[in-house]
């Protein structure tokens, strides 16, 4: 039976919008938004294509603190255009990370938290979104040499496309049960591989391969967290205190490549066989 008292006590993180999420994770009262919606730095491309823009382009960037330590946080709004990253939203994240790098060069130990709720590049802005994502990735790699970059994939959108690579570059990655993490989204895979191999409407199957629990069991995510504001805030602080990891996951690529090379792709993959690739005996 469900623990009703616990359910009533918990506050869902997944249900919060990007600005509320950022505010909820930073130390109380420390949230200070950069380029807030009233600055109206919005996409110059969407309206020309007949799409209503959002005043903050779906990205909230804020300075604040975690346990008193300087922190920059970027939260993507999954409800606006599927959390897609265009020129402006992408540049806001990249710029915030670059300022954090600059801080560290000046001796200010600014760390970063990325709340990733995104289908990846915004197709309406094509190359400009791709370029911004490349800048974000480069900035993560540079910043993580100073201070941890902590990624959180909470759901319900998940994290896909180029931003899944950005997630993979983070010092630490947290995911909930609701989260999905993958390079291509389910519909794209279905279109390419065929519905026999990958049925995008089969939700249990999709989550069994790309869901937060599976990614954690495969060692591709560092913490599997409940959808609860306090829990996620505590976990983000725990990783922030850990400082930089000895070796980031993405720098262990040779180990991953070797495991993947031994995987027999002629058989249909399932949750179990994928976990074995990353954790156990891959043959």
């Amino acid at each position, binding site marked *: 039976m469900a623990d009703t008292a616990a359910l009533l006590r918990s506050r869902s993180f997944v249900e919060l*919008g990007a600005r509320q999420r950022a505010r909820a994770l930073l130390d109380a009262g420390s949230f200070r938004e950069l380029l807030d*919606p*009233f600055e109206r730095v919005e996409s110059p491309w969407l*309206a020309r294509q*007949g*799409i*209503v*823009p*959002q*005043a903050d382009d*779906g990205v909230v960037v804020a300075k604040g603190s975690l346990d008193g330590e300087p922190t920059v946080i970027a939260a993507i*709004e999954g*409800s*606006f*255009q599927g959390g897609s990253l265009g020129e402006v939203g992408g540049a806001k994240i990249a710029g915030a990370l670059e300022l954090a790098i600059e801080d560290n060069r000046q001796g200010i130990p600014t760390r970063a938290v990325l709340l990733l709720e995104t289908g990846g590049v915004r197709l309406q802005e094509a190359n400009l979104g791709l370029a911004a994502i490349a800048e974000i990735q480069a900035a993560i790699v540079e910043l993580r040499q100073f201070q941890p970059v902590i990624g959180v994939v909470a759901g319900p959108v998940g994290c896909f496309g180029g931003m899944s690579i950005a997630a993979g570059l983070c010092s630490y990655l947290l995911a909930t049960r609701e989260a999905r993490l993958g390079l291509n989204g389910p519909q794209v895979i279905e279109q390419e591989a065929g519905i026999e191999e990958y049925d995008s409407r089969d939700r249990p199957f999709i989550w069994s391969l790309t869901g937060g629990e599976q990614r954690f069991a495969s060692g591709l995510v560092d913490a599997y967290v409940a959808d609860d504001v306090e829990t996620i805030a505590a976990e983000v602080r725990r990783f922030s205190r850990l400082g930089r990891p000895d070796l980031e996951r993405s720098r262990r690529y040779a180990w991953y490549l070797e495991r993947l090379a031994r995987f027999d792709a002629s058989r249909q993959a399932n949750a179990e066989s994928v976990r074995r690739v990353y954790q156990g005996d891959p043959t």
Partner: protein
Amino acid sequence: METLSFEFPAGPPARGRAMAGCVGSGDLEVLLEPGRAGTLAIRVITSVNGSAQRWQNLFERMFREQTPPALSIDIHDFGATPGVVRLRLEQALEEVAHG
């Protein structure tokens, strides 16, 4: 997509600014800022074409009941129903009044 403009009589300028909502399916974003004394200016960008009369009626109904403060309101609408529009506006007006 359509851009619409509306003006209504208003009181003295509001003191603060406020925002509510998000440009998500069936929702909208409203941004309220202090405006020119005596005027409530609203600019609506909406994904639903041909809906000017509906917006006019909704605003008239809302601001007939009590004179709003002078504001400049920006609305980015993604197919919100009149009920949701009113909810978001009231949410932000409340914040401007007491924030």
